[in-house]
């Protein structure tokens, strides 16, 4: 643990080298230094092979860093013990491009599963799961199987699972990769609302339109290095700066409609640890 650290994530001169079977070393990350404060919303963008996936793997301890230091939610990843890794992962809510739902379980069970295997008591699960599903507007689909849901709904289920444990940090790895454009904006909106409750959100994405629609801090990776790290939500930034973040004309898609975010009125309030919501106007069903 780093003494006196305020940032929820801190990378200090982090490097990661993969050694594969043919002893060809590939440097996936070079000299990454980065600080993300509690409650921030950060886009992580970059072309394929730029190191985005490696970054996520390091955060989850799927891979160990080769050099430097990383602190996540108070855990020192350079020296973390194998037995502590599950506890680190419980403080992070992961959302995947391929949703990673279990096909032969209902939506309810999928969300409950994540809580059950992390040792939450049964009565806590019985409170949290319906609440998480309600936040994502999936009450009616609780008894359905993933195959019966649309892409957008499946991702919302993945989000419900990520949120159910009340994590400090949400990491979304290309969450809209398998979803149609309209549903994608709905998902983006949900991330925004999650962030407004104080949860830190890191969104790894290809979709530059998101950045235009909802400018926030952008960290751009290229060949393992950070080449751009600015907060675009500050009004100083012009369209041209935003344009800098894209690396190909193909990214310049048609301008999106202003009010294309979905029509669900989902009020997301941060769920307190005892399962009750403070200051919500809505009835948590």
């Amino acid at each position, binding site marked *: 643990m780093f003494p006196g650290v305020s940032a929820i994530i801190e990378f200090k001169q982090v490097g990661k080298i993969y050694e594969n079977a043919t002893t060809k070393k590939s440097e996936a990350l070079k000299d990454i230094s980065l600080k993300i404060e509690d409650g921030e919303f950060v886009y992580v963008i970059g072309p394929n092979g730029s190191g985005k996936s490696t970054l996520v793997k390091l955060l989850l301890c799927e891979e160990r860093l080769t050099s430097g230091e990383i602190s996540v939610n108070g855990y020192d990843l350079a020296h973390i013990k194998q037995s502590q890794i599950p506890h680190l*992962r419980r403080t992070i809510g*992961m959302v995947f491009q391929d949703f990673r739902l279990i096909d032969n379980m209902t939506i309810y069970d999928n969300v409950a599963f994540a809580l059950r295997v992390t*040792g*939450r008591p049964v009565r806590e699960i019985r409170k949290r799961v319906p609440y998480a599903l309600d936040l994502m507007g999936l009450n009616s689909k609780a008894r359905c199987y993933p195959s019966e849901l649309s892409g957008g709904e499946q991702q919302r289920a993945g989000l419900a699972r990520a949120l159910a444990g009340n994590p400090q940090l949400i990491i979304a790895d290309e969450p809209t990769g398998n979803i149609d454009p309209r549903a994608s904006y709905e998902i983006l909106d949900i991330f925004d609302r999650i962030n407004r409750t104080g949860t830190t959100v890191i969104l790894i994405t290809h979709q530059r339109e998101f950045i235009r629609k909802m400018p926030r801090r952008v960290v751009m990776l290229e060949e393992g290095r950070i080449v751009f790290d600015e907060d675009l939500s500050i009004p100083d930034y012009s369209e041209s700066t935003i344009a800098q973040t894209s690396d190909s004309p193909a990214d310049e898609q048609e301008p999106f409609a202003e009010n294309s975010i979905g029509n669900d009125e989902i009020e997301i309030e941060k769920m307190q640890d005892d399962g009750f919501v403070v200051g919500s106007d809505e009835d948590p069903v």
Partner: protein
Amino acid sequence: MLLGKGNFLGLIKDGLRNIWLNSLMSLASVGVLTACLLLVGSAFLVYFNIESGLEQVGSLGEIKIFLNDGLSETEHTTIENTLKGLPEIYDVQFISKDQGMEDLINNTPDGDILFGMFGNDSFLPDSFLVKVKKSEDYNAMVERLSQIIGVDEIAANGAIANTLTRISRSVALFGSITVGVLLVISIFILSNAVKLAMFSRRKEIGIMKLVGATNSFVRIPFFVEGVILGFISAIFAFAIVWVGYVNITGYLADLSFLFVMVDWKVIAPIIALLFGGMGFFAGAFSSLISIKKYLKV
């Protein structure tokens, strides 16, 4: 880490659910383990029956000395003293003809029907049952015994018993090796089945690990699954052996009253314990060694 009671039951339910969902795989595993248990059980039953058969034939340690008819009380006593005086003999026991008859009726199945027709007359002679210490020259000693006045015949199965004891020991050794080898094979095959099951569920395991489940949580449902499969195999094997053994016993008894097998009631608890233990051990062990590969996420 404390497991809440509700959570523990939930993990057991997971194990059961997994068996149901992968029913074909479970069926294959159960089939293999049941076959192995049957082989082990058969080997054991053969050994057990031979062993108890040997006991009936008589051991190296006992000799039956049949006396001439019509000897007096005094002559009986003389013979008894002579026997007691011999250094190789200990434990001299007199068996009257009536006692001998009673023993024969009791030891033979349906004896009362077979021998009842003779009424109260015993066609057996009086005899002495003596126990013998190990002797250098067994045959010479038997010869000396037959020279005693009043002795008609000697029933000394020592030589035969010797051979049979050697056979029995070979069977025991062979049986143990068989059991050991079959157990190893069972574990190997079962662990392969468990590995396949885990491979088909690697997605689930991966998610469990990423979400922050500890290794124990991942292990427990598979452990439960392995043990349950082991017990199911044990139950199947037990049922098959039960039916088979009772039928074979009946069939052989019909052939000849000489083929007396050990009663099922005597041997059933042993078989149940054997199968149960092996089933549990095979199931538990194979699931634990199979899962290691998938925990490295």
